[in-house]
């Protein structure tokens, strides 16, 4: 086991940030911690990187205890915190050189590990880090976190606020890193990124909702979901929300994901109802649950 977390709890005053969290992450796994702001992701990361002490529970990273052996952990992990935390007034190259030096290595020693990532920002190596675009800052931060060949990589919301293209590229880089044997724990609020992980843990309000592979986690969704579309989305949502048998009504892109309370739900009846309420071009079709549906269902409970 690369990371073992047992019943970790942490509160800030009266606010409970983490409530009895337990997880196991295998060596070489690309593990996703999925949840919105305030779920407790950053707190958990800070505990695992030994920056915070938990109130209760224990955890080990690469075999070392987070409380007793924190010095050993700090030498061996790579950490990319939530917001950009490199030196803005140092250049790309100076930042990389600095982190290599304080970890007792050189840029050349582990260059093969960061090569794919670094070549994209190498043309800017003499530019101050503060003047890089969002995507480039990410790549630099990742390079600096990898330069000492860590066994475990902690990435706290590396893609937040970044456009879909850069996000996709970033995850492709992570997959390639995984091939080199590094255990990677990533947190993200974007549910679509969860599909790229080996396993994911859904977290909300300091509690784990569910842990499974992306493919299997949707099996936890209890009901059949229907895509419903009409000519006026707002009216459609209104009408569905006031429908007596509705269980859940959520907009999902161009359609509404609808679930019904009844086990013997007949879409045709719903279609008629909607037509009488003045909606046209009604489209109702069964669809598969997504990770986001599952998350929302589990969060409600």
């Amino acid at each position, binding site marked *: 086991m690369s990371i073992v977390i047992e019943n970790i709890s942490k509160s800030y005053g009266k606010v409970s940030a983490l409530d009895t969290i337990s997880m196991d992450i295998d060596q070489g796994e690309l593990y996703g911690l999925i949840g919105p*702001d*305030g779920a407790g992701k950053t707190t958990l990361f800070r505990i695992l990187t030994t920056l915070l002490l938990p109130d209760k529970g224990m955890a080990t990273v690469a075999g070392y205890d987070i409380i007793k052996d924190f010095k050993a952990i700090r030498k061996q992990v790579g950490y990319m915190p939530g917001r950009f935390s490199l030196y803005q007034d140092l250049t790309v190259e100076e930042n990389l050189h600095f982190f290599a030096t304080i970890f007792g290595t050189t840029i050349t020693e582990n260059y093969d590990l960061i090569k794919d990532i670094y070549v994209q920002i190498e043309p800017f190596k003499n530019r101050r880090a503060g003047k890089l675009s969002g995507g480039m800052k990410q790549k630099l931060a990742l390079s600096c976190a990898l330069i000492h060949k860590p066994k475990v990589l902690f990435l706290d919301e590396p893609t937040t606020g*970044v*456009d879909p*293209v850069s996000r996709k590229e970033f995850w492709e880089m992570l997959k390639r890193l995984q091939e080199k044997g590094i255990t990677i724990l990533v947190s993200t*609020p974007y549910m679509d990124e969860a599909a790229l992980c080996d396993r994911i843990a859904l977290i909300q309000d300091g509690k784990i909702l569910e842990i499974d592979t992306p493919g299997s986690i949707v099996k936890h969704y209890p009901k059949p979901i229907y895509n419903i579309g009409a000519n006026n989305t707002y009216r459609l*949502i209104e009408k569905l929300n006031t429908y007596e048998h509705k269980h859940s009504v959520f*907009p999902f*892109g161009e359609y509404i994901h609808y679930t019904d309370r009844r086990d013997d739900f007949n879409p045709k009846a719903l279609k008629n109802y909607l037509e009488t309420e003045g909606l046209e071009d009604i489209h109702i079709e069964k669809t598969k649950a997504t990770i986001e549906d599952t998350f929302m269902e589990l969060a409600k409970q």
Partner: protein
Amino acid sequence: MMEDTVIQVEGLTKVFGDFTAVNNISFHVNKGEIFGFLGANGAGKTTAMKMLIGISAPSSGLAHVAGFDVYTQTESIKKTIGYMSQKFALYDDLTVRENIRFFGGIYGLTKTRISQKSNQLIEELGLEKVAKSLVGSLPLGWKQKIAFSVAMLHDPKIVFLDEPTGGVDPITRRQFWEMIYKAANNGTTIFVTTHYMDEAEYCDRVSIMVDGRIEALDTPKNLKHHYRSESMNDVFLKLARS
């Protein structure tokens, strides 16, 4: 400008030194529309928005927002629109009520009106228990919903939303969008930028900026058809990569 057009943009350009951030963009937005303004980081979205809300002067081109000229009538624009951004919307160290009172005052509402709106807002969002709590202590999703309502306090014709749902949990995100739908249904025009491509689908029309230019502008349905894509996410990837 037609009766129904609330935003009219022609050849709008913004240059910083030798870098052209916004390059000759043209489009219009109709009353009551939900208009999605998308683009990669650094594509020029924020710069363009700043010009439309009257806080940055264009280098060239024309634009009218709610009938006012963005060069000469920025104060009128600011009075007529609502604005909410992800980075800042409310004061964390003021309570919910205090925030409403403050912004109400800024928008020029009378005391009675502020009081009315305050109660209405708190009731609609179910915030009775936290009305006297500091905004900073509330979850992000609640903050964003309150911020949106505050941006709507003075019944603006157009509301500009800059990545309003970043990091918000999926349920609250959707509740937020239901609030947007309701406002649009009542005639408010919504101009929104977002990185959630599924939210792009909620819009009536979407424009996608790449390197300072508008490379696509149409309904989500047409865009998906044109780019042979299943989702707006794919459309975006195809456009941005080309």
